[in-house]
Every structure is written in C-alpha cells, then in structure tokens.
C-alpha cells in the first residue's frame, strides 16, 4: 500500500469540485491511502471530504513570510522552508495528483511526491502539460462547445473515469447558529439565498433579489428564506432587508457572516433549495445534498461548473436579440453562425450580462419543477449524471448533448497520440485557435 496526495490549492468552488475525483480515486484504488493538500483557509471544508486519510493546510501567508525573511536572514529562510515541508511529510508520497496548473502547485507536487500526475508531470520546470490540462487550457482560452465538466476533467487528469455515484460531504458541525432554530422548526419550503458573490462581476443586483423574495413569499405562504454569505456580504444583506416590506420580514432569516463553512454546509443540508450565482456556496449546497437553482452569467457556464449530480437547475444567460445584433455588428455574421452551428450560444469573451431576470419563472420552477415559458435572454438546464460524468439537458428543448461529445472527448484525450485538430473540431473551434 502506498500513500498518494491530491493537491488542490485553489478556491472553495474548485476544492468542492475535487470531491468527485477523490470519490473516483477511492473507487479505482480502494487500497491506496489518499491525503489532501488544500489552502489553509479551506481546511475545515477539506476535513469534511470522505475518503481522505489526512488533510494538510497550504499556508500562503507563512510562505510569504518565509520569502520575506530571505532578504533578512537567508539561512533561516531556507531552514524555515525545509521545516515547513518537513511538518507536512514532504517526500513521503509515491504519487501526487496535481489539479492546479500553477507553478506553486507544481513545485509542491515535486516537494511532496516522487511521481506527479497533472501539471508538472514532466518536471517542475517543464511547460509541457498532459492532455487533459491542455484541454482545459483550450477551454479557458477559447471556451468552444465544451461539454466536459471541470470535476470530470479533474478525473481525466488523475487517470480515472468520473465517479459512479455523487459524493457528499461528511457532516461536521451540526449546531445551528443562534436564532436560526426557528427557521428549521416549522414546516414549509426552506430556501437559502446566496446573495453575494466573491466575483463582483457575478453579483445579482439587489433589485432582483428584492423582487424574487416578494414573488416567492407571496406565491408560497409557508415558504421561508435564509440569507447566507460571508462576513463581507453583511452590508449587502442589510441593504436588501431595508428594501423588503415589513410584512415579509418575519419569514426571512439572516445568517450572513455568522457561520463557518462546515456550519454553512450543515445549514444548507437542512434547506430544500439553494439559489444564487456564487458557484462556491452553490457547490457547497450540492455536496450537502440540497437542490440547486443557479443563475449563471458573466463568464460562468453551466457545462463547465454547473452543479454536479442529478436534479439541479441552472439558468444560463444568453444573448438577447439586441445583444446578438450588437455582437454581429462587432464580430460579423460568420462568427455568429459558426457559434450557432456548434451549439455555442454564449461564447462571448467578455461574458454575458443579463438585461432582465427570470424571477417569476425561477419561483415557478421551485414550486412546480416546471416552467411555462423561458424568458428571452435565458436558457434553462437540468443536471444529469452518467458514466461520462455530469451533463446538462436544456429544458423543453431537443438540445441534447451534441453527438456523444463527452465520450468522444474522453476517447481522444486518453489516447496516446491526441489529434488536436479533431479536438478543436469537436469543440467547434477553428484549427487556427490551437494552443501549442
């Protein structure tokens, strides 16, 4: 039996999308012990991952301090750096799975393990990357008609297929913060709203939330709302609550900035729905077993980072006819037609910003799991899961996954010699957009 290490140093959303690859590694290598290295602030989330023997924090602050010390006392800086790695059992792993295409993660991989899968597998200084990482680079740079979910691409990087079942977080902290027990004690639909977003570009306007809350609470007299978010979003929730008529206020609870991440996971697991645009908390909801309705706009795309597992819904912003006209004027009809041919409806570099919001429609979906009409500027997608991982089917449309995209892509990328022209063709990209 050997010890293997999964390295994921990125943010909350990426860490939670690492759950499927850990589940898959456990399925494929049940006898191997698996440890996890993640960013220190997320250690409490990583501790809830099933199938992990030990978890180690990567402390960026400490490394910044060590680097600073170099200018003061070099021998001490080297000593501290060596000490840091020593504390984290450096060099004791037979294999490191590196999920970040970043020099720090590549260096950490080689410090911890004798062999590396993922970025850095050809050496810590090599710019050559494995097929799946290169594929993600193409998606990142050109987007295209990608249908492989990021969590499944992580599986590809690690040399395993997507997991057969959807992994959930272990319950760590079962206590509710003060004042929330009444939210959970009564019957009725419990909805958690993720009001803010770590990325300002993906923040839903307060006016939309105001309208959504009134619509939902009017349509569902038993319904209750819980506002969630980090401490930085407290002002936002205060501003929102100021707008809401007092007759609704007894049915709205505010937990913003009052919970740790494991506490938040526990709270979400007791809700019926989590709704919002910030993919980090949405993935936390998914991993806590709750249904999701996500609003994906700006550069967020359902096929890349939609909720993992069946039964979730994503509203994807699309170009309206007026935005389409503007885009055509700027980029030409050919580009638009090419995008349409490849089922790429929102391949706009700067991202799409909605002109209106599907308020009535999303409340209707929440209450009935149906939607009478899809407003212009949006498409609605339902999540599924099969042997090739997560996939999304457009609601009330025959817009199925084009031509077995994922199966073909897995075959191509797992082959010895990848024909990148074919990869581009399948993605609907011109061959000239190759990333060499």
């Amino acid at each position: 039996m050997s010890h293997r290490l999964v390295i994921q140093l990125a943010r909350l959303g990426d860490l939670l999308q690492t759950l499927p690859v850990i589940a898959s590694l456990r399925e494929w290598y049940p006898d191997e012990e698996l440890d996890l290295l993640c960013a220190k602030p997320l250690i409490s989330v990583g501790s809830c991952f099933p199938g992990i023997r030990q978890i180690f924090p990567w402390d960026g602050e400490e490394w910044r301090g060590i680097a600073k010390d170099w200018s003061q006392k070099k021998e001490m800086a080297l000593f501290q750096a060596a000490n840091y790695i020593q504390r984290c059992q450096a060099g004791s792993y037979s294999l490191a799975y590196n999920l970040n295409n970043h020099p720090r993660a590549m260096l950490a991989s080689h410090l911890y393990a004798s062999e590396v899968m993922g970025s850095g597998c050809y050496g810590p200084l090599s710019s050559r990357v494995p097929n799946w990482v290169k594929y993600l680079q193409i998606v990142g740079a050109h987007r295209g008609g990608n249908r492989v979910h990021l969590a499944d691409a992580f599986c590809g990087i690690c040399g395993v297929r997507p997991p057969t079942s959807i992994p959930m977080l272990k319950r760590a902290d079962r206590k509710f913060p003060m004042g929330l027990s009444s939210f959970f004690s009564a019957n009725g639909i419990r909805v958690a709203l993720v009001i803010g977003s770590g990325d300002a570009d993906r923040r839903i306007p307060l006016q939309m939330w105001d309208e959504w809350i009134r619509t939902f609470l009017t349509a569902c007299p038993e319904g209750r709302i819980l506002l969630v978010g980090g401490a930085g979003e407290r002002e936002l929730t205060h501003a929102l609550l100021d707008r809401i008529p007092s007759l609704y206020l007894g049915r709205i609870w505010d937990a913003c900035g009052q919970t740790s991440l494991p506490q938040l996971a526990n709270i979400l697991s007791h809700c019926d729905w989590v709704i919002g645009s910030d993919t980090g908390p949405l993935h936390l909801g998914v991993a806590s077993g709750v249904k999701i309705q996500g609003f994906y706009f700006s550069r967020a795309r359902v096929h890349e980072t939609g909720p993992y597992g069946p039964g979730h819904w994503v509203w994807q912003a699309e170009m309206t006819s007026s935005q389409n006209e503007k885009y055509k004027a700027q980029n030409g009809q050919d580009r638009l037609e090419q995008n349409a041919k490849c089922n790429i409806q929102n391949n706009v570099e700067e991202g799409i910003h909605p002109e209106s919001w599907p308020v009535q429609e999303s409340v209707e979906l929440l209450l009935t799991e149906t939607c009478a009409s899809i407003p212009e500027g949006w498409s609605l997608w339902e999540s599924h899961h099969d042997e090739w991982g997560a996939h999304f089917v457009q609601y009330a449309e025959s817009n199925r996954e084009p031509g077995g995209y994922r199966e073909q892509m897995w075959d191509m990328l797992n082959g010895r010699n990848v024909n990148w022209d074919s990869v581009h063709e399948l993605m609907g990209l011109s061959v000239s957009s190759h990333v060499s």
Partner: protein
Amino acid sequence: MNIVQKNLKLLRVHDPILADRLKDVNGGVLKVLTAKNGMPTAQVHQQWIHSAYDPWKEAQAWAEHAVHEHRSGEALLTIGVGLLYHVEALTQILSKETQILVLVPDLGELLDVLTVRSLAGWGEQIQWLWGDAEDLADRVSQAYSRIRFVHHAPSAVLHEPYVRAFQYALRERVSSKQGGKLHVAVVGPIYGGSLSVTNHVVPALEALGHRVTWIDHSIHYPGYKNLERLRDQQLRMTMQSKFGDTLGVVSLAHIADDPPDLVLAMAQAPLSMPVLEQLRKKNVVTAMWFVENFRHLTYWQQVASGYDFWFVMQQEACIDALTHAGARQVTYLPLAANPAIHKPVTSCLEEHEEFGADVSFLGAGYPNRRQLLQTLLNQDWSFKLWGNEWENPGPLAVALQRNGARIDSETSVKIFNHTKVNINLHSFTGHGFDPDGDGINPRTFELAACGAFQIIDTRTLLSQHFDETMLAILQKPEDLVPTIQRYVYDTDERQGMAEASRQHVLAHHTYVHRMEALLGTVGLHMSDRIGEVLRGDRSTDALVAKSKGNPELIPMVNALPHSDRVELQDVAANIRAKGPTAVLSRDELLILMMDEYRQETRDFI
C-alpha cells in the same frame, strides 16, 4: 561610603580610567529637583530632561518604544545621558547579553547622575563611551559591527555638536569598511539643477560597486514642458501636478519591477506622499538628497515625514526645520565634484579665444550678482559673464557671453579652466552677501576639482571644507575688486591655491565620498538591513559561517553561488536556467517556491 563613592567603585571595575577622571570633574550640568513621586528629576535651562511627576514610568515607556526595532546581536548605543532613568529601563527590558553603550559627551553630567542615583544592579551592564569623538568613533567602529542608535531626545539635545561629530566620524569609519553591494534605485527629477547632481550620483554609486537602477524622469521633460502651452494657469498647474503624480506611479512600477535595497530620491523627484507611504508599506527604505536651498524651495514640508532619511546641504536651521516638519533622520551632506567631468583641460586656440578671460563669472542673474558684478566692468582686466536668466542685463550686457544662453557642464569646465580668477558668488535675492548663507554651492567643489582659482563669498559652512590656502574668501562685498586685483596678476599664488584646493577635493569631496557617507549613514541606522549588506554579511561565505550552528544547512548554503550578494531571484534564475527537463533537488524546489511568493510581494501598485 556615600552614593558617589559606591558608584565610582562600581564604575572602576569596568572602566578605572573613567572612575579616576570623574574625581577631577565638576558637576552642576543638570539642575536636580525632586519629582512629584519623590524621585530625583532634572532640568537644564528650565527645560525638563525627565518627567516632573514620575521619571521612572516615563523612562519605561520610552524604553519600550526604543527597543522596538532592536534586533538580537545588535549593540544598543544610547544618545543622551540625563539621569539615566531611560538607560536603566533599557537594562530591564533587554537580555543581559545585549551590549548597551552610553555616549557621554560631558563627564560633568555623568557626575551629576552619580550624585543622586545608584548604578547598582544595572550600571554593570553599561559600557561608557567618553572622550574625543574621533578616537571614540575609531574604537566603536572596531569593536562593534552592528549598532542600533537610540536617542533620548531631551538629554541628547544638550550636546548636539559633540553627538554630530561622533556620528559623522563613526559614519566615516563605517563607510571606509563597506564591502557589500547594494541595489540602489535613484529617482531623478524631471528637470532642474538637481538633475545634473543626479548625473554625478549614479556613476558614483556604480564606482562603489553598487547596482544602480536610474529612474530617469528627465526623458518626460518634453511632455511636461508642453503643458506650459495651456493658457489657463489653474488648469496648467493642475495638469502639471497630475503629470508629476503619474510619474510617481511610474517610479513605483519600476521599483516594483526590480525591488531595490534603497530608493534614493534626488531633490524634485516626483515622489508624492502617497507614493512614499506605499513604499514604506512595502518595507522599502527611502532617502532624499535635498540639494536645494531649503529656504527657496519649500515643498519638503509636504514630504518630510515620508522619507526614512533626509540628506541636506545646509545645517542647523535646515535640519531643525525638517525635523520639525516630521523628518525622522536628517544629516548634513554637502555637494561635491565629479573628477571625471570636473578636471583640468587643455583646449585649442579657438576655445582659448572664446573662454579665456582674466575674470569670469558663471551663474544665473540673481539681484545680488547683478549689483556686485557691475563693479567688475571698466577695470584693467577682462571680464566675461556666463549663464542664463540675465534678461535686461543693463551695463552687464557688454560682458554677457552667448547672449545669456544656458551653459552645460562641459562648457562650464572649459570656462573654469580658461579663467585666471573665477568669481563664485552665491545667489541671493537681496543686495550683497546672503546674511543667512550657510551651505556651499556645487560650483565651489567643481572649480576646485578643475584646478581653477576662485574667489568666493563667505558662508558659515565654508570653513568646514576649505581654508584660505585653497580659496580667496570674501568677508564683505567691498573686498571683491581689491581681492581680484591682488590675485589676477599673481600667477604663482593662484596656481598654488588652485592646486591645493584640487587635491583637497579629490581626497575628500567627490560624489563617491558623498555616496559612501550617505550609505554609511543609512547602514549605521539600519544595521540589520542595509548595514548587513554593506558589511558583506550577505555574501555566500558569511552565510556559510552563520550556518555553523545548524550543520544540516551548510550543504544548502554551500550550493548557493559564491558571490558578494546572494539574492533570491538570482539563485532562482540559476535554477530555472537548468532547463525544462532538469531534475531538481528538494532545496532547489524550496528556493523556487520562495521565489514564487517573493514575486507576489512585488505587488506595489
């Protein structure tokens, strides 16, 4: 045995000569009074040296603050004696191993302490520095490699000239021992007199072996000048200010791109207070050499507290004004000459024809010059007037050369060399000589370095650098014509004095000397940072020596390139140069990881 005898007995154990000397000294420097809490306190000229209420509590607070930046292994040199409460408080905070030195400018003051306060229990830890400032600087520079200064301001101020003399002497000793190489970013002005000084400072630093990044803003002068075409004065000033602000951010970008050990700004460098605050936040040491008359240009008031070190070409009044405005460390640093430029030259007949004269003056048309130089007309010697800002020259028009065009450095050297008697008259907006004239202009050093004879108006700081065997010094304006008459026909005496002044400048007053002194001051006050580099404590050999206590580190350190200065980015670059297929050791990976985070700390803007 009374308290004095007990204290002298204690002193005798460590410094018997001092104990003997104190027997022959009279006290009474301090007026000793009783504080509200019953402890002795003191006044000098009705100024309190210690608290009138609780001198001990006050001293404890002072000591807490004073040791804040003290690092292990540094000797702590205390300036200011008073009743030594502050020194006793230091002994209570610091470990027994810390060397605490106390500078004693006046033994009478120390005797006053011994009369009222017991040294028992803490005085044994003190090393007393007393006697001639130069000898003392010799001893201290030899005995201690890392010194941290702490000033007890109320008592330090009592003996300022002695303290300054000691610090300058110590700086000289430390400067002469400098070996390590710094990276200095020199931020120059957009235009103006300090630009030419910057042109001398950069090669001087390089001549000392330091790596210099010159952030030269003079390349932006055409853009700045173009703004003068704006007719609306308010708009013009606003735009010029914004232009300066932008160049400040440009400076930050250059500094972030390749972070230096020290940012040396020259007068009029476009570094605003927000830029300086950002540099401090990023732990960058900053110094300003203010080569301007502080009475004429007053923008220093806005940025006094922004720099870690100020260097000025004037003394008392200037230092006081800057300190009052919030400057932390102000040091006198006069101008100098650049022997590569300012040197004796020979020239062809045509040049001799143009530049040759019995008497010449080169400089801008200030009122005092317009008045005094008229007396040189219609004499039995030839007189040429050079320089710009001579609009409406009046009778001086006959002497004005090149129509009052600006004269560059190269031409000025030719003028100095071809003139028998150079007049060096400091600028003044009134008549005659500036009654507050203290600092000496760069022309004094430049003329001397050229081996040119000069007559100069007296300045309070002139005698610190030159004497009458080198220059002809005027005490009053009326002496100008008789002094010229005395020297213009006496070639031997002129040449003898000129040569003496040239040798003196080459030995003591070049820009290389100034940069040595400047860096010596910074190194002395930043013993653990700049000082460590200057002492060569960051060389590979020094690192190996330091690692002796941790044998496992020696292979790591030995693997570093053997050079004067081991920098993370250089080491990392060496590792990366091994190529994409290289197999790296654990230590190499660690160094690359540290470098990844170092690059992040460069995020200045």
